[in-house]
């Protein structure tokens, strides 16, 4: 086979198309990384940080929900595990939040495997309901346990600012970069998985379990691996969030609301797609932050109503998410 015909072979053309996504990601991430130099408004930087965090969380959720088709509505559990592991290790033992995130990720992955053992035999919405119940049980435990600080939560003590403590006083830019780094990591993992055996097995499991099995796909192992990866990254986000707000309690990291908020950007932007979570978060998070500041505190639940409505509109008009507005090839 000559070189030109080799390069024109269908697998090579696919590889080139797949690589183009990477070439698209580099300037997108670079532009986002440069934003703190242009934006100095603390409120806007806060919105940016939350947008990137939710994009990363939706990207993590998408690995299990979008690619493997297991719709978890209990990812707040993994976020909480990451937030608490990071907080308690730092506050009680002086272990850097970076270490806490790694421990939280490992704990979360193990928890996800245990949840998977219990729940992956359940079909469709029974699985989703079970994940809600398990996350609520986790919330109750954290609420009532002593070592977690119970309902009062845990305050991060004032410590020296810097990358070691992940505390930056009033500066927001470093948090933008960490959130962006987390998003970039989840995006890159998704990108790699998309053209790896696991990526194809996960989608096969999502689309048709019986056909997948008949082609040699280990369905249970596929679901378990997707759950572990998804939960681990969600926990890193929880650890980051704890460091960012420097105070956590059960309500602020583990309620059902978060489980919804991690799924929504992916559903809005395009479930099971590479760019859906970021697109969804870019629309959803600024919108909710604006409605929150104009219409009062988050307690009203009005914001939930608004994006619930938004999701319904998209689901009816564009079930495949906002990305489906673009031509297929460019996605």
């Amino acid at each position, binding site marked *: 086979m000559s070189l030109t015909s080799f390069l024109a072979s269908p697998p090579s053309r696919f590889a080139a198309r797949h690589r183009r996504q990477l070439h698209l990601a580099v300037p997108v991430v670079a532009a986002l990384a440069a934003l703190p130099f242009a934006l100095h408004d603390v409120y806007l930087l806060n919105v940016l940080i939350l947008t990137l965090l939710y994009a990363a969380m939706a990207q993590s959720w998408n690995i299990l929900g979008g690619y493997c088709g297991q719709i978890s509505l209990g990812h707040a559990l993994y976020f909480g595990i990451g937030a608490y592991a990071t907080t308690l290790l730092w506050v009680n033992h002086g272990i850097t939040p970076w270490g806490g995130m790694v421990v939280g990720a490992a704990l979360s992955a193990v928890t996800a495997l245990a949840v998977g053992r219990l729940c992956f035999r359940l079909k469709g919405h029974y699985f989703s309901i079970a994940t809600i119940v398990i996350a609520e049980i986790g919330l109750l435990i954290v609420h009532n346990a002593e070592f977690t600080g119970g309902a009062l939560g845990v305050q991060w003590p004032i410590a020296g600012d810097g990358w070691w403590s992940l505390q930056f006083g009033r500066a927001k830019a470093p948090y933008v970069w960490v959130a962006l780094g987390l998003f970039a990591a989840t995006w890159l993992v998704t990108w790699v998985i998309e053209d790896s055996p696991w990526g194809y097995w996960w989608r096969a499991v999502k689309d048709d379990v019986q056909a997948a099995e*008949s082609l040699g796909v280990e369905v249970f192992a596929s679901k378990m691996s997707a759950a572990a990866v998804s939960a681990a990254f969600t926990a890193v986000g929880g650890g980051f969030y704890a460091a960012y707000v420097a105070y956590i309690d059960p309500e602020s990291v583990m309620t059902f609301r978060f489980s919804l908020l991690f799924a929504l950007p992916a559903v809005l932007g395009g479930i099971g797609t590479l760019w859906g979570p970021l697109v969804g978060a870019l629309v959803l998070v600024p919108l909710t932050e604006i409605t929150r500041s104009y219409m009062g505190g988050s307690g009203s639940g009005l914001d939930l109503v608004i994006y619930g409505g938004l999701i319904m509109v998209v689901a009816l008009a564009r079930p495949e998410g906002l990305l489906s507005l673009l031509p297929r090839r460019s996605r």
Partner: protein
Amino acid sequence: MTETPLLEVSNVTKRFGGLTANADVSLTVARGEILGLIGPNGAGKSTLFNAIAGAFPIDAGSIRFDGHDITSLPCPARCALGIARTFQVPRSFDSMSVVENVLVGALTRRPKTRAARHAAHEVLDFVGLGSRAEASAGELTPPEKRRLEMARALATEPKLMLLDEVMTGLTPSEAREGVELIRRVRDQGITVIMVEHVMEIVMPLIDRAVVLELGRVLAEGTPKEIVADPRVIAAYLGDRHRAA
């Protein structure tokens, strides 16, 4: 030296609640042959395919394949040993392209996605779906979906293929192409068991036939013997009468 059969189904019974879909079914399949599995609607043909492929556990009996007792092996392990099947109602992975559907099967023998993708394209060319490789699987027409079923199963590089009504709904010329395709599959050394209702299609193609009725083996023999067998004629006539 007598060669051991590729597949030995011994006294297989499968019940759904009170209904016995397979009752004490025994049959053997030699390497390289095309066996026709025929019988009226509801005779238990698809159930037997499911039992051989491992889609569900059976209630009694045993199945040996290529020297292994596979009776209690899960479905993916049977695929790894070399059993592939198509589904009577085509199933596709609609979030993927046609070639990626086939790629999933190709991963059975190839751990690298690039090599699997390459193999998937080759299989698509073999079944005549090469031009649709990049289409979304959900966009295929029903006859194309049947070809995709064949391609996906072939991509696992099986020793045995179970083809469940792959010719249903095809025009006569498409069916002729289908017959040709099955011959080429056999020429690759793959043993085939096929379920088909249209006798004009199956009879010239198969080496031997097994007839199921009401979950039991009613008759077995060459196509000539089968079409002359009064019990088979009665079963089919009875079926027509019931249908009328």
